């Protein structure tokens, strides 16, 4: 696929860079941020639903959750794309990836809520606190302490899964690199640039995530 014999050409690297960076900012980051918000909220709804709904309803929610969680994002994207033909692919992709990751986050919430000591629940009963207050003032703050690092890790994971959106014609970084490659018959620079942007972004966010984890540890009673 190369038109000359050199492995790396700085000219091509510089030429490919701007478009790829643009896709990073306008597509990859946007999808990740909005998708994470959807996932975090929907995940909490699922977790609370499983816990508080009557047994049969909770069982159905669990089954659906597991079904989405254990089946490929790619197939879910394709399914949505061909059903909701009027919705712009990037919007569809963001929603689907948000739903997919909501199922992961629901599990994290569940584990975090389970980890709150039973004594806390008993104390709220002894004080006759309402369910609303129990959740918002006592349980969720404590559950969040252990769930936030795991949630952060899933956000980073979603970030690295955004290329899957290319199967429904969304042009994100990797697809942009591929487009550059097929137009100019030079693929090496483009894909390496895309990879480097992912790598740098990942390492930075991992460092931030780890710092967040340390910060949360210090504030434990």
């Amino acid at each position: 696929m190369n038109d000359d014999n050199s492995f790396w050409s700085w000219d091509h690297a510089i030429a490919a860079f701007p478009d790829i960076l643009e896709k990073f900012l306008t597509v990859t980051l946007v999808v990740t941020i909005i998708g994470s918000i959807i996932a975090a909220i929907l995940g909490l709804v699922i977790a609370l639903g499983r816990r508080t709904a009557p047994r049969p309803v909770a069982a159905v929610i669990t089954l659906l959750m597991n079904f989405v969680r254990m089946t490929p994002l790619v197939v879910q994207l394709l399914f949505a794309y061909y059903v909701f033909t009027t919705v712009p692919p990037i919007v569809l992709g963001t929603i689907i990836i948000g739903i997919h990751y909501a199922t992961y986050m629901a599990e994290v919430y569940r584990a975090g809520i389970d980890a709150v000591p039973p004594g806390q629940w008993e104390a709220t009963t002894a004080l006759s606190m309402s369910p609303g207050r129990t959740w918002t003032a006592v349980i969720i703050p404590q559950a969040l302490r252990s769930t936030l690092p795991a949630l952060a890790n899933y956000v980073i994971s979603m970030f690295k899964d955004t290329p899957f959106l290319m199967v429904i014609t969304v042009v994100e970084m990797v697809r942009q690199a591929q487009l550059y490659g097929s137009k100019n018959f030079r693929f090496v620079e483009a894909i390496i640039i895309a990879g480097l942007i992912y790598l740098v972004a990942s390492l930075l966010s991992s460092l931030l995530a780890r710092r967040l984890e340390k910060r949360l540890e210090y504030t434990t009673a």
Partner: protein
Amino acid sequence: MTENFEALWRALPQLVDGVLITLQLTAGGALLAIVVAIGLGLLARFENVFLRGIARTIIELFRGTSLLVQLFFFFFVLPLPPFEIEMPAVFTGILALGLNYGAYGAEVVRGSINSVPAGQWEATTALSLSRTHRMWRVIFPQAWALMLPSLNNLLIQLLKGTAVVYLITIVDLTAELNKLRVQTDVYFAYGLGLLIYFAIAYLLTLGMNALETRAKHRLGQGGKWRDSITTTPVPDMKGAGQAA
């Protein structure tokens, strides 16, 4: 509806082929991943800074870049000079899947080994067991039971990751589903596809749960065999099998 089933019947041979390719990718990828995971996981614990650095670099490289970047790199760039490696697309898929998930697995392996209680390490010192011997006979067997839940999560993710290889011309289950959609309809084709993937994932989880129960039995920790029949691989709090 019946036309759908007729179309399905006609497409069945190809569909089965697709499933087989998906299973090949999953099995091959998993095998490579576990080798990479244990190799890098142990290497990352060496005292030699150089070796540890190599392990760290490889782990961060494959965890930090996306699966698709790696897939495309191996598919498009490897055949070029200076590498000039040509291989069947399926091998490329297995390579990318194995290295990517193996890097995540390395963190799981490393974390599990570190989780083995300090007293066990101290007992091996008190008995003067050599480093290799204690890892082989005492530490790793105990770490194995600890790492299985997270490895289970990774295995399911690997299975899901195979669905994207059709982009590098591999005719896996998803590729066949795309064809089936044309002959039937969206709901039927992808609905069926999701069910097939779910069934495979469920069976894999059963297998891993059985492995975990067996590992726990060997450590004298009970656990009923009945408990291994669940859908959920155990969630890992830190997302250890996942990102970062």
